[in-house]
């Protein structure tokens, strides 16, 4: 006998789906058979540190900003996404294959390079074959989520936050699979970002990212760019220069703000792994 209904029941069930997805992660076939995969599940208030870090990295990278806005707004509405954190120990090679895909002649040379290095946003350095194993596991996580018909997206933005905060301590590469809330199109055609997105932002992102789309006649060697309706009056051109502003934002986010957030939460997170 029972009667389940309402939003809370659905949200709780996403956690159960996440547990099933972790089974798929560990069942995923490997090429090497020697890559150690880790998975953890986070939701509710445990997402707060992740959201705070993403807010900072989002200042520097638009794709992180969209992930941050989506996850934060869902969380604030009481519709917490569930994050499946997926990591792998990929920084050292125990294969001895000497395949050369890392750029070194031998695994020994690569290991000498990789030992002790590692400050990338997503981790690294990495043995490419171990990254392949890890990526297959991440893909199986996504495929399992689709099989349960839960909206999901695999996110480097979340992976970077997990790295800063010390989640998945045995892993050198980390990604986060955001799951739910249980409705259509949370992470695609993102409704939760409507309130953040402006026409001007979208237009400028396109101008900056796909300038060839807006180029006028190139025969003169210095084409005008169609940045406005009356683009010829007067015409505007492209100029390349070192803009310190984006670098300053990266510097401030990664080396000023995020360390403060990490200091606030890392002790508690680290303690969980000591239990």
């Amino acid at each position, binding site marked *: 006998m029972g009667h389940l209904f309402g939003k809370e029941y659905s949200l709780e069930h996403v956690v159960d789906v996440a547990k099933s997805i972790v089974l798929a992660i560990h069942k995923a076939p490997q090429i090497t058979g020697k890559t150690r995969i880790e998975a953890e599940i986070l939701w509710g208030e445990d997402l707060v540190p992740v959201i705070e870090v993403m807010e900072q990295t989002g200042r520097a990278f638009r794709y992180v900003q969209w992930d941050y806005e989506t996850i934060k707004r869902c969380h604030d509405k009481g519709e917490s996404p569930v994050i499946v954190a997926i990591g792998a120990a990929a920084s050292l090679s125990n294969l*001895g*294959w000497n395949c050369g*895909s*890392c750029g070194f002649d031998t695994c020994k040379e690569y290991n000498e390079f990789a030992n002790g290095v590692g400050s990338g946003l997503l981790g690294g*350095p990495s043995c490419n074959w171990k990254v392949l194993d890890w990526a297959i596991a991440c893909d199986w996580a996504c495929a399992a989520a689709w099989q349960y018909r839960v909206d999901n997206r695999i996110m480097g933005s979340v992976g970077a936050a997990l790295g800063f905060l010390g989640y998945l301590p045995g892993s050198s590469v980390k990604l986060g699979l955001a799951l739910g809330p249980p409705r259509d199109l949370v992470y695609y055609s993102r409704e939760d970002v409507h309130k953040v997105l402006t026409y001007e932002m979208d237009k400028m992102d396109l101008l900056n990212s796909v300038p060839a789309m807006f180029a006028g006649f190139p025969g003169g060697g210095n084409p005008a760019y169609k940045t406005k309706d009356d683009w010829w009056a007067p015409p505007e051109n492209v100029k390349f220069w070192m803009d310190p502003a984006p670098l300053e934002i990266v510097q401030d986010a990664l080396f000023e703000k995020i360390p403060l957030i990490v200091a606030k939460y890392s002790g508690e997170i680290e303690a969980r792994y000591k239990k």
Partner: protein
Amino acid sequence: MRKYVEDLDFRGEEHINEWTPWSPQDIRRKKGVLEAARMMLNSALTAPVAGGVPSTEGHLVYGQEELESVARKIEELAYTNKVWKEAFLYEAVMVRDSDVIIFLGNTRCHETPLDAGCGLCGGGLDCSNFYEKKTHKYGLVDITDRSSPRHINGPLCTARVGDLGYAVGSALWTACTLMVDARPFASVGMAGQKMGYCPKSGMVVGVPVAAKSKNPYVDVNVDYHLINMEKVLDNTRKVYGTARIIRGFDYRKWIPKPKAVGKEEEE
């Protein structure tokens, strides 16, 4: 409405059996696997990739001679590295026991990286680890010199390699859904790349596929390259013929029978 002749005569029968190998009934079975492999390849193309950038190419290879060529290339590779030898020799047997091979490659990992400064390849905050070891002009990588002393001409953009992993993962997921056996192999991928499959790719993974009573890719015995179904059958052919000729008789006149128990004593 246009009607096709085959629509008007839609009937037939297909006998399907994995025995004997390469018989019409076995080839019909293989054609089913080929259809599954095509769907696996489509799945690979829909896999999530960094930035939604198209970077996966695939190659389907089937046929007795084609699979034998791949198996021999794997055997050749086996002898280039002591660590590979036994595993690669086993995997060459698996290729011969397969119906179709899917090669999946990433077309960007060696030439047009993600350029996102993710750090996956070298652990830094920019892409210098990749570019400093490549021949390039203002970030445009020159891949025209394809000679390399290494099996794979690295370094590669590891984010793109990850995308290849997603493609392989999706192909394997679909294999599970369609209940065909499949596994990803480095040996098959490297052999395929050297043979020219996935010609635009910097890294290739091979996924042999089969639908047989026994999954070719698991539960192998020791010395699998020496003791496997093909060898067992061939050895049976080797010994059974001789076993027949060592004691022949004219079956039209006399066929030896087992002794009836107790009959000899009575007589």
